[in-house]
């Protein structure tokens, strides 16, 4: 006979167990959210809303629109937490991608441009994750990551940094960037590749320093 009172939802056992080993992992929070735990949802919100809101603000440059995005993203997390699968990447990356994609969609809809965000098919995402799991850069914690990426971006030549920022934070396609900067499309593609490769090299060195 069950004695559970309705309205007071149970937590997954691993979630309860993890209370003794602070902090509760993101994965456990998402599992609890998938089971309808509003407390877990609040914890996830407190943990990530400043990063997501900062990202949405940087992309949209508008407080009200950024709030709308955060509301959409977190309601979506509440409704779709079951869709998050372990082994498909860090929850933080998933949340930030949701936030970035929704912000770019909104930005582009305001500018009457077509949608162009990275929505990968599930099978590609899974294979990609299998390849990425051995990458040392995936193991860097968020605080260190922020410092590393800032340092790395500061070392890029201006023309490469500018193109990467226009792509990522303004949601512009390479064709649009070429038109904006009055550059040949091939130059934009090459600078994107060189910039991303250089970032990777610097991050690997920095990561090696920070991880030891």
């Amino acid at each position, binding site marked *: 006979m069950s004695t*559970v009172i309705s309205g007071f*939802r149970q937590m997954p056992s691993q979630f309860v167990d993890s209370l003794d080993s602070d902090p509760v992992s993101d994965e456990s929070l998402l599992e609890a959210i998938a089971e309808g735990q509003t*407390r*877990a949802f609040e914890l996830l919100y407190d943990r990530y809303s400043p990063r997501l809101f900062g990202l949405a603000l940087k992309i949209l440059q508008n407080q009200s629109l950024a709030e709308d995005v955060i509301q959409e993203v977190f309601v979506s997390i509440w409704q779709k937490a079951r869709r998050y699968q372990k082994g498909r990447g860090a929850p933080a990356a998933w949340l930030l991608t949701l936030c970035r994609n929704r912000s770019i969609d909104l930005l582009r809809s305001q500018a009457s441009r077509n949608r162009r965000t990275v929505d990968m098919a599930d099978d590609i995402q899974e294979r990609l994750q299998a390849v990425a799991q051995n990458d040392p850069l995936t193991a860097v914690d968020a605080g260190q990551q922020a410092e590393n990426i800032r340092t790395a971006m500061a070392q890029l030549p201006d023309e490469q940094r500018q193109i990467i920022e226009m792509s990522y934070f303004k949601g*512009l396609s390479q064709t649009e960037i070429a038109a904006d900067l009055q550059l040949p499309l091939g130059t934009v593609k090459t600078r*994107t590749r060189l910039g991303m490769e250089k970032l990777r090299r610097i991050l690997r060195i920095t990561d090696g320093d920070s991880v030891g």
Partner: protein
Amino acid sequence: MDKDRLKELAAGYSLGALSESDHKAFDQLLRAGDEEALEALSEMMVVAEQLPSLADPVPPPPALKSRILNEINADQAPARQNVTEMPTAQPIEGASRTWLWALAAAALILACGWALHVRSLQQQVDMLAAQNEINAGQIEQLRQELARREQTILTMSGDNTTVIAMAPQAVDPDARGQLFFDADRNRAVFFSSGLPDIDENKVYQMWMLRGAEAISAGLIAEEKDGEFSIEFDTLPDDDGLTAFAVSLEPQGGVPSPTGDIYLVGVVPSE
């Protein structure tokens, strides 16, 4: 495909910046399971996933959290219809050992839930304090709430706390609730999400029963839609306390019960 060309496509793809035709071409390679394409993309994605960290974290306005919580609470309402059955009215001392263990487990789960809630409130307090625009009244309100929740946890997790299932009565067999009675501290806390909606001119009232005497423990507040709770001091001398009961009374409460009794929980004998 030329390696540089492959990396160009992977870099643009990871940033969501490829033209339609380039995107399609690279997507086909990925779908075909091209190992080099996957590896190139993986290398670029790891970098692209770090780019959000270039944005400084900014705490969103506190009101946003309330807005979101309101929306998800409205969203989860249908799920509440899937509830478990409460036991029929009977004294605790007649229950099986399994039943008692299950009650203890439920108590532990509830206590953990409250602990998480307290932690969440603490985080909110810290965040609010860090914001210049925060209103000092809000901080004080949260602190009081935090202190109240901590008191609730103490009551729920006391060494001598008894968990009492509040059994439904004939007026509403679906009503349900649970009461934590800490005899050491003479304190009790009651929760229910199964009491029916009531008119504005009515209120649920908690009673402590000592023999034939009913002593009011206070009016039960509705915390949010359909969820009721009350925390109260029990009698200084609880020797004669036999049961707790919930009745429906006129707004403002009454000195003695006059309305229908919805829930009764028997205090187990020593």
